């Protein structure tokens, strides 16, 4: 394959101790960033923000951060929303209701349960009529979603907003997902010339499979028990820790990423 070259125009991030990408940079530089509030998702209208489940607020928060950095128009911006586990709280609540009194299932909870609920809320809030998607790939979710977004940006020659998020699980399901912490991040990827590049990425699928680049030890909490480790390794590189990243893409394939900071 020919490598794909894409600019990063925006980066979003939220975890229980990191409010945004600047906080990650500060943490990696040895500072202690202020503990953030819950994701605010300011792009959602107030009534939607109240109605939206936590998983949607997390995804919209990080998506909005990357969008703001890029200055792009969201109405025509394609987006790929990825989550390894989906909304675990809603799955837990729905399965609990179905086990006890199925006829009492809430219609709102049901339509919030679709994997594309964050994509739906995002496109509605931003007036986006561009293609939107919602994807997953278990432990490989971030790598596979990055390939999906990058391929769309490259093949269709359009910017694509990639959003990855998983929330803390709860209930009996948590033992299965092993995902007990919330984490979200986003990258706005653009082909060709870019007015506001933060970095340039060279992405190539490798025909082999080796140990993935680990996230820095200081981010072990964020990477705990969810497919976020790959995202954190890449974010740390974007924050200046290393120029090359190997991410697992599938059971026997990796994605090799080289980056050049913007001049």
């Amino acid at each position, binding site marked *: *394959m*020919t490598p794909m070259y894409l600019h990063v125009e925006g980066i979003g991030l939220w975890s229980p101790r990191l409010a945004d990408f600047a906080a990650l940079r500060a943490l990696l530089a040895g500072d202690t960033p202020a503990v953030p509030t819950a994701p605010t998702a300011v792009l959602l209208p107030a009534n939607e923000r109240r109605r939206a489940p936590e998983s949607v607020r997390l995804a919209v928060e990080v998506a909005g951060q990357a969008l703001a950095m890029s200055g792009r128009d969201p*109405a025509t911006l394609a987006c790929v929303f990825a*989550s*390894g586990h989906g909304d675990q709280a809603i*799955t837990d609540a*729905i*399965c*609990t209701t*179905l*086990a006890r009194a*199925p*006829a009492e*299932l809430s*219609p709102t909870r*049901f*339509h*919030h*349960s*679709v*994997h*594309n*609920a964050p*994509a*739906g*809320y995002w*496109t*509605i809030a*931003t*007036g*986006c*009529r*561009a*293609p*939107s*998607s*919602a*994807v*997953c*790939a*278990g432990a490989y*979710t971030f790598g*596979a*979603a990055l390939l*999906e977004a990058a*391929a*769309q940006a*490259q*093949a*269709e020659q359009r910017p694509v907003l990639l959003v990855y998020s998983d929330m803390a699980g709860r209930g*009996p399901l948590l*033992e*299965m*997902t092993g995902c007990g912490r919330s984490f979200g991040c986003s990258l706005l990827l653009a082909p060709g010339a870019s007015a506001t590049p933060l970095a340039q990425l060279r992405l190539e*699928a490798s025909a082999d499979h080796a140990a993935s680049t680990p996230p820095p030890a200081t981010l072990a909490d964020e990477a705990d028990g969810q497919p976020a480790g790959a995202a954190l390794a890449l974010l740390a590189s974007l924050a200046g820790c290393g120029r090359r990243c190997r991410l697992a*893409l*599938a*059971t*026997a*394939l990796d994605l090799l990423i080289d980056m050049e900071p913007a001049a």
Partner: protein
Amino acid sequence: MTTPMTPLAISACTVTSALGRGLAAQHGALLHGGSGLRPNDFGSAPRLGWIGRVDGVEAIALPATLADWDCRNNRLAWLGLQQDGFLDRVHAARARHGARRVALLLGTSTASIGATEEAYRRLDADGRFPADLRRPALHAPDSLSAFAAAALGLDGPCLTVSTACSSSAKVFASAARLLALGLADAAVVGGVDSLCDNVLFGFNALELISPSACRPFDAARDGISIGEAAGFALLERVEAAPRAPRLLGYGEASDAWHMSSPHPDGHGAELALDAALARAGLDAARVDYVNLHGTASRQNDAMEAALVARRFPATTRASSTKGFTGHTLGAAGIVEATIALQAIEHGCVPGNLGAATPDPDCGPQFAWQGESRRVDVALSNSFGFGGNNACLVFGRAP
């Protein structure tokens, strides 16, 4: 601006739904007007509308090496993979291209959540999942693709698309991009969704389930009938299968309107149609048949009837086949892709089963009865919750 794409060969496909196992069963039912719908006899939701249930899923046994993946959704996937020689075709593609060069892109809306529902019904004394269901890979939204990758022995890029009812249409778009960029040499696409309490009670809570068999585009239509299905297709570059039918275009767009109802003016649906036609390099007048999303919900069918009326000439034929299969949700895209491909192969347009009194807003394009005619270009519409729209264009090999 959307530019034309290089067509791809659909070198094999298969489908299993309430109409039966394999392409021949589907073609026979479509030809003779036989619906696969029946009064709901599934799970904890008896008497909740009608359903399109696949017979015999309960009796399917997975091979011992795949036993950890056992659940209704994966049994249905396995049943589907056995039909029409599809497994052999995938194995041949794997041998030809290499396991890492064959991508696997599947759509599903609820994957194996039926197994998670069962675990919650049978929590043990400590409130944990019962021991036999403590299988983490089963309680994840990517379980279908992970199972299929193991079952097919594929090691290429692997992704689950889960955009509700457009899921297994959008996988064609993802596959086309990977092949165009040389990230894969072939792609298995498709989708599986199976009956479960979540969707039956969920759509019931939204008051979207018809008490009788669904009636797409009927003036008195009153909701959907939920079905289940498994379908797959193998996409390769045309040189690999020059005589095979082709994917000519795809289009994707969002409504930016509402989480559970379509834009009343069909803006997103029309943008997806425009993009699909632009990639195929075709005018709407060149389309011989449109397989409609046509769920039999009041709002979808009103929006889609208006879209057909304003965009296609009377020579274009259009119908919904949900009256045959029910709405198979995340599998609807692949099921209806195979119906569009069969329209091309057999020269027959399926009738819009279930509409006794056509909605007067439907134009002359509607095929209320089955028709025999040559079909060179066929479209399939798939629209999902969250305003997620996809349109695919298929064509005969020149």
